[in-house]
């Protein structure tokens, strides 16, 4: 009885995941690939050819864009990983996993665009930092003429990526370290005469890295193909490849769509090649590291390096926090002329100005976010329940399936998906946006919910079954209530991911559906920081509200249940 029921549920989930998740990605990739080789009937192109590639290579700035992408992607990922590992090594004894996670949540919850806009407000020549130190320290009465944002080297972009990626790496590393006997191995290594820093590099890191490899690839893929942060902070002319591709797709000249598709395909090749290259570098490091370890040298102290990494991480976190504050200040500022540290007059006008239209964007963001999260959480619960009933561990391919949307660059299949949706008659509407966002929300919900779900004490379910509760009642009356906290947390994460989505909304909404994120990114290139600030503050605030709800609701419902407070998550 249970077995067949479990099978039906699993078949439904499999069909939904295959049809709703995998198929759109594959179809999108396929349509992009066809267009990259000259076939896009919608604009009258029907002949296979290499012409799009020739045009792509001849487009102005193409080579620079590609170089910038590789440089910013690799530099930010490698640096973020090194800083996070160094910080973890320097601070390991001082931070518990739980305290660390709590400290990191604000940075993880803030949408990229809001953080990037805040950072731009902070480090621009006329930004808050310049105002804070002028004129007394710098002598500037006018903003200096240097490009600290949108610099041609992409340094501001790398900084923005670091502020976002380091906290993510730290969270992943803290979780992985809790599975390793760090203290014992530190003692064993030091008793053999090795300094703390060297033990971290020779003993702890080689055990840690395999546990965080997949998240590293996700970050590398993200850094090589990010669009919104790159528009706000990255080089503007030429931009990184992903931004260039987005511009070509959206250009008035529709003949650019074919070379844009070729570039989108190239973008996924860059990510795949980048991951392969990284993998090769891992192998090389492993071989060199083994030779180094065999020599048994104790001499090199890595301690100063670790402390420097720790200090750099603290500075990054400080910048991130200041960036968020600067958003709020600017949205409330009225007159604020250059070197003053704070506005001369404050006003709510930017918030109340009728034309700015943030209310419609907020409404769209909420509707899309809630719908996407609901669908994703429901699907995740169905998937996990199906696994439970089949009593099967998750297969490797299923795990890969979950990570697929996070590893494939969005730009590589979103345009193709738009072509598919257009043919199906659902393009340009809310449904299309919700569907496209769910592709990226579902994986995060699934990842967040899997571990707490499996950690549920199986004796409770056996007890329920022994009392005559069938599978449905066990799910509704035992599992879901006990797992309310992790489910709410997963939902909050999903909502935050949805709020942050830029490209899916832009492409699937055909530019007609404005959310806080699309508006904020568009406004960020404009001059009125007050209006941009309003959008960015709202964008950053929504995930916080979601997280607070996720904390408060279970705490309230379970207020008389000590066993459910703070336990699972």
């Amino acid at each position, binding site marked *: 009885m249970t077995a067949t029921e479990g099978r039906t549920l699993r078949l439904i989930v499999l069909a939904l995941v295959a049809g709703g998740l995998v198929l759109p990605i594959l179809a999108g990739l396929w349509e992009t690939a066809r267009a990259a080789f000259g076939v896009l009937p919608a604009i009258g192109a029907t002949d296979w050819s290499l012409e799009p590639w020739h045009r792509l290579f001849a487009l102005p700035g193409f080579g620079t864009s590609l170089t910038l992408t590789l440089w910013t992607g690799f530099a930010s990922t490698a640096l973020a990983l090194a800083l996070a590992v160094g910080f973890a090594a320097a601070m390991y004894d001082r931070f518990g996993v739980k305290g660390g996670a709590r400290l990191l949540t604000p940075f993880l919850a803030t949408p990229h665009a809001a953080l990037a806009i805040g950072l731009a407000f902070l480090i621009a020549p006329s930004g808050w930092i310049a105002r804070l130190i002028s004129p007394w320290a710098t002598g500037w009465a006018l903003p200096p003429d240097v490009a600290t944002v949108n610099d041609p080297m992409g340094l501001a972009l790398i900084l923005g990526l670091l502020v976002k990626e380091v906290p993510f790496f730290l969270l992943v590393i803290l979780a992985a370290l809790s599975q390793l006997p760090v203290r014992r191995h530190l*003692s064993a*290594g*030091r008793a053999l*005469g090795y300094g703390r820093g060297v033990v971290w590099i020779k003993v702890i890191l080689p055990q840690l890295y395999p546990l965080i490899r997949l998240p590293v690839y996700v970050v590398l893929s993200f850094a090589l193909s990010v669009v919104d942060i790159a528009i706000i902070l990255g080089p503007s002319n030429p931009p990184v490849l992903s931004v260039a591709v987005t511009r070509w797709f959206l250009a008035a000249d529709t003949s650019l769509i074919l070379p844009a598709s070729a570039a989108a395909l190239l973008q996924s090749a860059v990510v795949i090649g980048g991951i392969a290259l990284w993998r090769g570098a891992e192998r090389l490091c492993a071989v060199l590291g083994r030779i180094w370890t*065999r*020599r048994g040298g104790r001499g090199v102290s890595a301690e100063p390096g670790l402390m420097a990494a720790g200090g750099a991480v603290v500075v990054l976190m400080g910048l991130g926090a200041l960036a968020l504050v600067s958003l709020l200040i600017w949205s409330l500022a009225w007159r604020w002329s250059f070197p003053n540290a704070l506005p001369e007059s404050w006003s709510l006008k930017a918030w109340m100005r009728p034309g700015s239209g943030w209310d419609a964007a907020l409404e769209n963001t909420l509707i899309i976010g809630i719908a996407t999260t609901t669908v994703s959480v429901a699907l995740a619960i169905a998937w996990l329940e199906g696994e439970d009933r089949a009593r099967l561990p998750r297969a490797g391919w299923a795990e890969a399936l979950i990570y697929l949307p996070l590893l494939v660059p969005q730009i590589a299949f979103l345009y193709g998906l738009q072509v598919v949706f257009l043919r199906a008659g659902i393009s340009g509407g809310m449904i299309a946006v919700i569907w496209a966002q769910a592709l990226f929300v579902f994986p995060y919900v699934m990842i967040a919910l899997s571990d707490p779900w499996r950690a549920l004490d199986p004796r409770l379910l056996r007890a329920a079954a022994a009392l005559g509760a069938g599978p449905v009642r066990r799910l509704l009356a035992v599992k879901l209530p006990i797992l309310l906290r992790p489910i709410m947390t997963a939902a909050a994460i999903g909502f935050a991911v949805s709020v942050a989505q830029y490209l899916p909304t832009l492409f699937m909404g055909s530019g007609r559906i404005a959310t806080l994120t699309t508006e904020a990114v568009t406004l960020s290139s404009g001059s009125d920081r007050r209006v941009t600030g309003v959008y960015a503050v709202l964008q950053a605030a929504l995930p916080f509200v979601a997280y607070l709800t996720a904390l408060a609701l279970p705490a309230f419902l379970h207020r008389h249940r000590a066993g459910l407070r703070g336990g699972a998550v």
Partner: protein
Amino acid sequence: MRGLDLHSVTIRAADAPLFAPLTLTVPRSTVTTIVGPSGIGKSTLMDFIGGHLARGFTASGSVILDGRDVTRLPAEVRRIGIMFQDAALFPHLSVGDNLAFGLASHVRGRVARRDAIEVALKQAGLAGFAERDPATLSGGQRARVALMRTLLAEPCALLLDEPFSKLDPDLRGDLRRFVFDHIRDRDIPVLMVTHDEADAAAAGGPVIPLGG
């Protein structure tokens, strides 16, 4: 003044002392044993001597090794080897590389280092085990590798923290003989903590009761 001396050592966990102040001389070429019931703080004492005391503990008193006060030194420069009860072999390194990790760095050159490791493996009765994954070893084999790794670092003193407690009773005798045979001709002070009276008897050195 060669040897290991403890001067009125006390350790506090949240202000409560774990045991009465301990003063003790551990002479060279013998195994001195501290016995006491579980939970009295024997392993914590070992952590203090080796320089590995965890946060949350405070200690007073001093540790003198070969006439040098090492109490304030970091663990890695004290030259005090420790053999843990669970061997603490590094799972990402082969058996041979675990030994290479321990082998003192003044042994230079690939060939010389490999030879030193082969000799140590032979002494442990594990010749040809260099490429093995430590996870495939038995408990007794792991303990022998751990002792060899510790000795290859040429420590000036050795701490044994319940080294036999995780082994089957019939293996325990073999391993005791192996461990004590290898350290007696080392001319270094050895301090062992255990709750097993048979360990103390086999060590054949002074026995000091802690607490209780």
